[in-house]
């Protein structure tokens, strides 16, 4: 994938491209970095076929279907078809909190600067910025507001439990 911002131990860096390849379906030139759609990947696991440790979740997929196999995964991509569709935020929440997923969690698709801090708070740690947008510019969006009231994946305690108000 291209145009990536990755957060590593709290620091963000731009990576021009990495090895993960979003695949629509199984193809003739298998690559250890193939990222298959969740349904395809799950079907292969069920049939006992070999799989890469990577899936991507579409807007209509239920991330809870990964519950029993979450340990096999170290890369999950969450597709934002349209940045105005907020299902991906709940998907990230469920993966991190409900399934306790610890691997890479990447937002891709319609991923824009002004939503990055929200995505980060919901547990994403890498972002494939929309094609045509400058990832260095987008990085400015990671900061967000320094005060958050509610509990989130990245800051589980709400403000009133964190500080003396």
């Amino acid at each position: 994938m291209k145009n990536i911002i990755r957060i590593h131990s709290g620091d963000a860096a731009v990576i021009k491209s990495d090895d993960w390849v979003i695949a629509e379906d199984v193809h003739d030139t298998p690559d250890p970095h193939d990222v298959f759609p969740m349904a395809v990947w799950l079907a292969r696991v069920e049939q006992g076929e070999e799989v890469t440790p990577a899936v991507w979740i579409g807007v209509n997929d239920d991330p809870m279907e990964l519950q029993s196999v979450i340990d096999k995964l170290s890369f999950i991509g969450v597709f934002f078809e349209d940045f105005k569709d907020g299902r991906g935020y709940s998907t990230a929440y469920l993966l991190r909190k409900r399934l306790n997923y610890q691997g890479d969690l990447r937002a891709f698709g319609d991923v824009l600067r002004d939503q990055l801090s929200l995505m980060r708070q919901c547990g994403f740690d890498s972002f494939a910025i929309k094609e045509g947008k400058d990832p260095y510019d987008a990085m400015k969006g990671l900061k967000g507001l320094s005060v958050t009231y509610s509990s989130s994946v990245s800051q589980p305690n709400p403000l009133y439990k964190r500080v003396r108000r």
Partner: protein
Amino acid sequence: MYRYDEYDRTLVNERVEEFRDQVARRISGELTEEEFLPLRLQNGLYLQKHAYMMRVAIPYGALSSDQMRGLAAIANKFDRGYGHFTTRQNIQFNWIELADTPNILAHLASIDMHAIQTSGNCVRNVTTEAYAGVAPDEEYDPRIFAEIIRQWATVNPEFLFLPRKFKIAVSSSQEDRAAVRMHDIGLYLYRDEEETLRFQVMVGGGLGRTPFLNQLVKDNLHWSEVLSYIEAVLRVFNRYGRRDNKYKARIKILVNSLGISAFREEAEAEWQQIRGSFSTLTEDELSRVASQFLSPLYKALDDTDLQYGHHLTSNSEFASWASRSVKPHKVKGYASVAISTKFPTNTPGDLTAEQMQRIADLADLYGFGVIRVAHEQNLVLPDILKQDLFSVWTSLCEVGLALPNVGLVSDMIVCPGASYCNLATAHSFPVARKVAEAYSLEEQLDVGDISINLSGCINACAHHHIGNIGILGLNKSGKDYYQITIGGAQGKDSQIGKVIGPAVSEEVLPGVVKNITNAYLANRNDHETFHETFLRIGLEPFKLAAYGPAGA
């Protein structure tokens, strides 16, 4: 009243700077209009017919006098000298320049106000009733939980791109004066036999094209679990609400297509996973927020004030105003004052900067510096000494705000309609005026308490479905027409009104409305309200009377 601490202030200030940068990027073309749209909406900025409109939140309707003066200053500096108060305890400025908006927001921040999430597909301004904290029938001050929910929902990262807007209202009194039943989540807060605070949670209300009252989803919810329960409902909505059709995207559609019991199961299952964890409220947090809403230091007085009694008997104009505007107060010797923003001297919800300043001055002089915005688009001075009522009235007279029509025919709830709104299918202000003008004050007093709500299109911003008489503006081959519903009601016995028949033109509308109220007068038993008469005799007599000769 709630005062910002350094955390609230930092959040709001940083948000202003974030938006300043976004506006600059929009103006330079770096952000497309499509990318900018949800950003500006979540900062209260709409694009209307003639200009940008900015909607500012007045959380749970509470304003200090300084905040009111700040709004007046914004009206003067950035708008055309007035503002429009809405049914959802917001104020809208209609003539705004995009480039000014960061400065307007900065101005708001300086008076502990903001426009965050007043629009967009997110949790909106949490509302309650105007008499919170002073109503004699109150169990617990609903503003405390409204503020707690406001903070929880503000820039909550998971829930800013919901399928559609999401509105929450709280009430904690015998009478529901906050239209709780038409909200996406409605909360009734009460004390159980052990005096523990609990919530009744209703979900799936909303008007618009397909009106629904909300339905009971959870009872006996302990106060400390209200945030986790709301979180569960929102997560279910965010995941399963429809996104393919904007008119079917509200939670009311999800609730009604699943059925309330299936929805309850979903919400309950999600809630069981998260309850008891981070979102559980603590006693400390509740008392911290509650301490911000302590009552002012009231004097110990008799309930009757001789001077007030004297003015009532000697000045009939004052008496007639007082009979509509003076509301009961939980403390002896005090009253709340409702200030009508309606016809004939005002446009419903609109106040000029001068009127705002005058109200702020009155609040400082007589009312501990506090003001409330009512769901009916009126203002309230909640804490007035009975002995000061006459002076308050005299001052209101000077700025055209001593209208004796609170709760009467001319106290209509009216949206801006085609005067400003680019979604409107008909005009609302000018026709509402004609309806109001069809009645003398005596006739209005004879009809008594009644709610008439007029929306300029099916979006129902004026809640026409729950008005005793609801009027909906339509467009029929290029002309404004008005469809009438009757039998709507808000409050604990809320009801969606029924259409009486074909829509009528602007010219006949006032006569038709009058025929309807005449039918009520002809049929009512002693002291029966319009709604009670409707419940007893049904739609038919009204239907028959409505289209008869005008004013018959």
